């Protein structure tokens, strides 16, 4: 019996020792992690899968411009050049399971980051919210989190809906009027975030006959594996 318990006790001891070592080596590892993450994308880019290819960059630029135009149209105060303070941060790591869309970024309280700040892909495309803040890093909850729901608006008619997070975020509780169409812009309408930040566009509106509400998927202008994010201060 004693012999059987030895591995358990020793594993626990090593675990505690690991915690101690981890505590001191965190800044170095996080710096290396950000660098490694960027480096790992390089071979994929060479093979044509990379997100830094010319076409991909043009698509991103196009999506950013679309989001900026939408934001300017929805926010009357921002007529003209938009100059909002923001911090860009590298993505260190992602949450290990598929259930939660959490990102660890390399900006924290020392860069002015606070809990609840809005996180975007490019300054105008909504991604999520700062959930926890450390001195030099923070945890961001993204629209890929299955536990997250936020009110949104759709299209020029500003139709209300609820966005449910997940691997493929979707729209629910769209009042069936027939006015929500594929390709309509989906943008933020929650009081916690700036109004009019683009999330994506409506894809495949689905409605049960006899039901008052419709549902739809959201086509996102980016994928879940981001290298960099922008936090609105």
């Amino acid at each position, binding site marked *: 019996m004693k012999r059987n318990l030895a591995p358990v006790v020793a594993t626990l001891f090593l675990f505690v020792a690991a915690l101690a070592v981890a*505590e001191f080596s965190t800044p170095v590892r996080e710096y290396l992690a950000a660098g490694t*993450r960027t480096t790992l994308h390089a071979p994929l880019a060479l093979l044509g899968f990379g997100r830094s290819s010319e076409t991909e960059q043009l698509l991103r630029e196009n999506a950013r411009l679309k989001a900026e135009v939408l934001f300017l149209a929805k926010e009357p105060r921002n007529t003209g050049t938009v100059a909002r303070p923001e911090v860009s941060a590298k993505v260190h790591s992602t949450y290990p399971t598929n259930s939660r869309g959490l990102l660890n970024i390399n900006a924290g309280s020392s860069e002015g980051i606070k809990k609840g700040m809005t996180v975007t892909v490019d300054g105008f495309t909504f991604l999520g919210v700062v959930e926890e803040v450390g001195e030099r890093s923070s945890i961001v909850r993204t629209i890929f989190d*299955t536990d997250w729901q936020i009110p949104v608006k759709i299209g020029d008619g500003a139709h209300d809906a609820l966005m449910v997070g*997940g691997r493929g975020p979707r729209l629910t509780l769209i009042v069936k009027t027939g006015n929500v169409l594929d390709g309509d812009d989906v943008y933020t309408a929650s009081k916690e975030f700036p109004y009019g930040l683009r999330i994506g566009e409506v894809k495949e509106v689905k409605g049960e006959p006899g039901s008052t509400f419709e549902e739809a998927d959201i086509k996102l202008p980016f994928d*879940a594996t981001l290298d960099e994010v922008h936090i609105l201060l």
Partner: protein
Amino acid sequence: MRESSIFSRRFAAGALLVLLAGIIQSSGIAAVGGVRPNILLVLLLTLVFFFREWKSYAALIAIATIFSKTEIGFSSPYIVIAIISACVFLVKPHFPGHRFFNVILAVIAGTIITYVITDLKFLGNDPFTVMIEVVYNVLVGIVVYLLAERIIGNETEFRTSR
């Protein structure tokens, strides 16, 4: 032959694989169709059947744990992965078959147990994603198994209780 001590080549190879798995997993680049495999879990559960000495294996778990720590703290799944791996090490003599099939069985069970402990609601709401991840993890497990046989060695460390 004295099996892998912490200073052996086999252990070094295992540690290197754990570090690589940690980097690939946290980078999220292995996602297919938005589903990411749990590479670290798969690797630790595969290596269970390549290490007989508990000290070496516990050290591998410790390395994986160190690497997953961020300034904010530990993500609960990493703690769960460490605990599941340690448990599988303890019960491995009771696994039924050939090492290859044991790896597959451990990976399937480990993936599902991770969700049962960390996010049971997700398992109920989106079982399809979990199913895809199980399949993906098994495929990664087969690759890791073949890799481990080449890098870590072919000696059968595993013995059944019978």
